[in-house]
């Protein structure tokens, strides 16, 4: 309002302003309720839609194709996963023993504690699901066994596993 008054004083040619009645100053109280309502609505919307959990990643480092790592047979634990996601393990030519998914971490940890040089060779049936592979990798990560081999099952392996009821 003050600015307008000053303008009128300097430029009297502006008649339009002069015609008006001098306005009384009124203490205007804007009702903020709708604005706050909208603000909260938007706030809640953005809070709900925000995703803080970006997808995670597992890192895979594979050796070059022609790299060969020799490991003593006694240090290799063979894990086999068949197409029904049953998990078996053995050392060398021992018969296969079953292990449940839930006991895997304990299983890995126990064997790692018994033999520090232990390496795991995972043989997965091509029909097994990818999430089984990720689960196994996850369990190995938990047991701090970050070096392992992952290969599809050969036909003999499939046969060997299928004989187990």
């Amino acid at each position, binding site marked *: 309002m003050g600015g307008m008054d000053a303008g009128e004083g300097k430029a009297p040619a502006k008649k339009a302003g002069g015609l008006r009645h001098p306005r009384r100053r009124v203490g205007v109280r804007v009702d903020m309720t709708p604005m706050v309502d909208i603000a909260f609505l938007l706030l809640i919307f*953005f809070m709900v839609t925000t995703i803080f959990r970006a997808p*995670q*990643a*597992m890192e895979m480092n594979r050796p070059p194709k022609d790299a060969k790592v020799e490991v003593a047979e006694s240090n290799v634990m063979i894990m086999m996963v068949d197409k029904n996601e049953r998990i078996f393990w053995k050392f060398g030519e021992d018969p296969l023993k079953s292990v449940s998914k839930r006991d895997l971490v304990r299983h890995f940890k126990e064997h790692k504690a018994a033999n520090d040089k232990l390496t795991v060779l995972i043989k997965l049936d091509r029909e097994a699901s*990818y999430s089984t592979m990720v689960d196994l990798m996850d369990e190995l990560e938990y047991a701090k066994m970050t070096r392992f081999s992952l290969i599809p099952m050969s036909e003999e392996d499939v046969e060997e596993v299928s004989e187990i009821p």
Partner: protein
Amino acid sequence: MRIDMTPMVDVAFLLLIFFMTTTQFKPPEEVSVDLPMSSSEIKVPESNTITVVVTEEGKTYLQDEKGLTAEIPEGGVTDALKDARQRKPSAFIILKGDKNTKYGAMADVMDAFAEANALRFNLMTEMKTEQKPR
């Protein structure tokens, strides 16, 4: 008695602006995959990535950063990856597989990666919420 709402409104607006600016809407994806769960805590880099998507049926797609996908013909993963790497030599390679994909399909893709000399890559997973017995 009238409670002064000003500080509350201030905080509300502050939060509102914060959430508005930090929200990132998921880009629409032409192929959707159900990621497997893992407790890995490595973050997926947001830019400079080459993403290969494997769907439940075992179809492969190359996905760019905007979420646009191009189907890779069967057996063409190696070439597609080589080509993509030529354009972005330092890109992170991300393999995004559906959790119900057969392991065989994933093994083939990973072998194709090795063929393209991509020995280091990331498997995209979703955070597992349940805590494991230690």
